[in-house]
């Protein structure tokens, strides 16, 4: 069992948990992920590692309630435990392979969307600890859905917050901020790292391609084992089929076939939707499907 040392709600539907997982904490690097299971029957849920503490043997995960499993998972409290935590899975961010001298010469822009702010954080923090300050754009639908602002502020060079509805910080999508920074403020970036909803990454890549900024994205397709065995997470990158769990999760965003990736994420939407309603409403149907009542 893997004990939960801290569990809290960051904002509506987004939760943070610090979990004891010494083997993962000892070997993980930014960019990698874990798979967790709540109980003996539980689904295997892949989640990006959002922070780690090697001395304490803990990792931090952040998740949004999107299906029946995460809807139940949000109720886990400090002192509860996960049945399984396995990792670190996937390749570490390429940034961790580069020499610090090379990184210091680079101007790096991170673009985080929604719950994607969580996996961006360890990368920015890792760079900060190595003396590299990167610019960060954090986008959220509205002020209430913004997470980890203070944490990010502490490790980022410049932090730009933008909300879709303009309720906080700048107004509009992250792509607008990218464009403003480059075209209005005359900023130059050698590399962009974008993590967030698939649709956001798609449009960030479209924008950075026009601006000629190489871009890395982190994909979160459907997975089962996470070790390369099942092939559920296959994505097309530069016309080649890749397994996100072993070849990724980070890829050259300008090469990713986002439309296919988004379509593959829909695979179990109907089944999951039913399961989510069952988890939310129990045995009795209360019309949450929107079709009856």
């Amino acid at each position: 069992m893997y004990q939960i040392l801290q569990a809290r709600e960051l904002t509506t539907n987004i939760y943070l948990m610090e979990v004891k997982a010494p083997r993962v904490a000892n070997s993980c690097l930014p960019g990698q992920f874990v798979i967790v299971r709540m109980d003996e029957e539980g689904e295997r849920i892949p989640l990006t590692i959002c922070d780690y503490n090697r001395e304490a043997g803990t990792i931090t995960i952040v998740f949004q309630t999107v299906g029946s499993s995460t809807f139940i998972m949000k109720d886990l409290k400090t002192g509860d435990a996960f049945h399984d935590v396995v990792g670190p899975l996937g390749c570490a961010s390429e940034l961790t392979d580069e020499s610090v001298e090379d990184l210091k010469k680079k101007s790096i822009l991170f673009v985080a969307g929604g719950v994607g702010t969580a996996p961006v954080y360890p990368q920015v923090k890792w760079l900060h600890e190595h003396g590299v300050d990167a610019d960060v754009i954090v986008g959220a639908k509205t002020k209430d859905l913004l997470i980890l602002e203070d944490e990010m502020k502490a490790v980022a060079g410049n932090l730009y917050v933008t909300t879709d509805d303009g309720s906080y910080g700048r107004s509009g999508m992250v792509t607008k901020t990218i464009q403003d920074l480059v075209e209005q403020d005359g900023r130059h970036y050698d590399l962009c790292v974008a993590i967030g909803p698939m649709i956001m990454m798609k449009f960030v890549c479209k924008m950075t391609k026009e601006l000629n900024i190489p871009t890395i994205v982190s994909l979160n397709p459907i997975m089962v084992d996470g070790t390369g065995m099942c092939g559920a997470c296959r994505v097309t990158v530069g016309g080649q089929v890749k397994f996100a769990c072993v070849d990724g999760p980070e890829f050259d965003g300008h090469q990713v076939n986002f439309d296919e990736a988004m379509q593959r994420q829909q695979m179990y939407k109907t089944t999951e939707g039913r399961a989510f309603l069952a988890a939310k409403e129990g045995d009795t149907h209360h019309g949450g499907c929107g079709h009856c009542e």
Partner: protein
Amino acid sequence: MGDVLKKVPVREQDAKVRATNFDEVCLGYNKEEAIEEAQRCIGCKNAQCVKGCPVSINIPGFIGKVKEGNIEAAYQVISESSALPAVCGRVCPQESQCEGKCIRGIKGEPVSIGKLERFVADWAREQGIKPEGTTEKKGKKVAVIGSGPAGLTCAGDLAKMGYDVTIFEALHEAGGVLVYGIPEFRLPKEAVVKKEIENVKSLGVKIETNVIVGKSVTIDQLLNEEGFSAVFIGSGAGLPKFMGIPGENANGVFSANEYLTRSNLMKAFKAESPTPIMASKKVAVVGGGNVAMDAARTALRLGAEVHIVYRRSLEELPARVEEVHHAKEEGIIFDLLTNPVEILVDEKGWVSGMKCVRMELGEPDASGRRRPVVIPDSEFVLELDTVIMALGTSPNPLISSTTEGLETNKWKCIVADEANGKTSKEGVYAGGDAVTGAATVILAMGAGKAGAKGIDEYLSGK
């Protein structure tokens, strides 16, 4: 007594009934049937069957005990050589191994060695009889990577010799292919696999799940930091292969590994499982091996019409005869001499059909099998909503890429000596699918046995 030239028939679930459930197909012998079948063994002095067994079970020895009605003694004879008799009795290809060499088989049917082994193991389990361990302690730690048939066998043998053994398993449950790959209706998980793993643990073997060697910890760390004197790699087969035809990433195309893992390991066949599996109407399984049969029969039980699509003919099907026979009985449709060329996709990205061509057999190729050749203008479309690719696997690079000095061959399989599992790296041994590429449970067990012997020789000489 029946016809001595024929096996005592084994009871099975009726094909129509079993096609709708996940309960075991074969019901096995009872004691009377087993003793009757055992009488057919003539107890050869120079037993050919033993030579056909990759783990060299003393077959006439255990059958002799069954004849006497002493099933516990029979179990201990098997346990000397095999850690997983209830598994092997169910999934070994006996027809090409022990039973294939049986003298009885020259004139009539061979002795039903597999079903007898299964009976003995099931009986012992029901009576709560465990294999005999040792109290001897060698005072040396050995790490085993993977808890599939190779790893369990290696670990069991080393524990019997007195080594302190820890198995590291990447998944959340021990058993490897026995739990994620082979379906419930061929190999019950709770009743059989879990109990045999308990038996291995009762010998003193520790199992740590959720450890991915190469990621959570490296082999060098196990040897240099965690105090292990030797390592056995039994990490199994790897990444699923796809055909590389258009439409393969459409929704509704799965690898057999994914489909079977969802159903077997994650229990998606049960309605209450939180892990989903596609509710298919019409499925094509591409391939002709045992994994293809398992995937096809799983899809059938989940309510679909299922076609096996295989490019050669019935004779070349690599699956066990028994599995093909069972699949046919249950209503699987065999589209032989048929090869897919494209998966058709609807406007929403889901599979709508599969374009295939008809094949005929030409001259034999390098493997000696007649090479399938496309018949011109034979294209046709199979309408379906699901395609399962069962084309085999290529090795997983997780361990080889993170272990310095570990030699791999041109297929990226780990190079290991067949006799003792020795690899190019000192103290590191390997066996099973990680070395040979996808093969059978029993061959992996044989390799696990050889690895245990090799590790014992290495550590004894130290």
